[in-house]
């Protein structure tokens, strides 16, 4: 009789473990778009906002959140960078595992110096990236992040239409999630926490 009880306990434990394993393999409930396998790994050769050459391999081991914009963008780029700043605050203990990259699609005006002041005004943990027009064009094409320079205005200024995408890569540099400037702080934070828990 005690033998049978022991057997039943084992059976219950086995069932519970099987259930846990099944949960572990259930697809996570992402709030952003799952783009695993649909976008290339994080890869670039650019210049950071301190004026130094930098490559994607410098960020391996971090979860990377990448956004394309430009500094003469007073409304939607600040809105998105404020969202990412708030995401960093909400991540708590996981903050140090995440790196935000702001890639300029206006390299003609965005020198490392201007970019440095711009990203630091939002969050000193954001790294700004710029490069030659050819480098930026190749980078944007890689991630299907279109951008266009609009008509030059009377004062010589111009606007730049740019992708609203927020690209999230895992620690191995694989593209995992795609959000937009319209996604909420909570949605981005939720998915980053899930990603970190899923592949710590």
């Amino acid at each position: 009789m005690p033998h049978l009880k022991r057997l039943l306990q084992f059976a219950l434990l086995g069932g519970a473990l099987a259930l846990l394993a099944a949960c572990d393999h259930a697809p996570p409930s992402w709030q952003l778009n799952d783009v695993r396998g649909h976008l290339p790994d994080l890869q670039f050769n650019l210049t950071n906002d301190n004026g130094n050459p930098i490559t994607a391999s410098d960020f391996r081991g971090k979860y990377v959140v990448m956004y394309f914009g430009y500094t003469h963008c007073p409304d939607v780029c600040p809105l998105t960078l404020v969202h990412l700043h708030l995401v960093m605050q909400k991540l708590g203990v996981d903050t140090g595992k995440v790196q935000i990259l702001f890639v300029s699609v206006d390299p003609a005006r965005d020198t490392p110096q201007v970019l440095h002041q711009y990203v630091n005004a939002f969050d000193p943990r954001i790294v700004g990236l710029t490069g030659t027009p050819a480098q930026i064009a190749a980078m944007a094409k890689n991630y299907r992040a279109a951008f266009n320079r609009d008509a030059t205005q009377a004062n010589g200024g111009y606007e730049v239409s740019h992708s609203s995408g927020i690209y999230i890569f895992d620690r191995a540099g694989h593209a995992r999630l795609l959000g937009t400037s319209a996604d909420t702080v909570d949605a981005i934070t939720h998915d980053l926490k899930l990603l970190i828990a899923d592949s710590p």
Partner: protein
Amino acid sequence: MKRKSMEYLAAVFALALATFISALESLPSPAHVNVQHGWIRWLPANLPAAGYATLRNDGNKSARLAGADSPDYAEAMLHRSMGTNGMDQMQMVDAIDIPAHGKIDLAPGGYHLMLMQPKHPIKPGDSVRVRWHLAGGETIQTSLPVRPANSD
């Protein structure tokens, strides 16, 4: 004779009064628009900054915001951020209608005032003067607080 001249004076006075009243009526009635909760998002390096506010129209007729300027910036333009097909872009806006007993919000991600080329150094904590121009000629003067870049 005395009575006649009094009648004459009264007639002249009545005519003058009528002219005055009709002149008053032909003036455009003042729009009942006020500007609330305005602020400027500061950006470094003399970059263009965005101004935000709510314009409320308490009148019975719709009003129209036709533009704005600032003595603190060389140029100011009404803009609208638009997100379409995964692209964000800014468009110039000529005017924005404010419905009767309604409001418009100039807020992050939508309508905003783009302020270019500051005439003197501006930093968070300062105030910036903005003059809002309504179609019909009325101007509303405001002084808006400058907030840090990462203000929510």
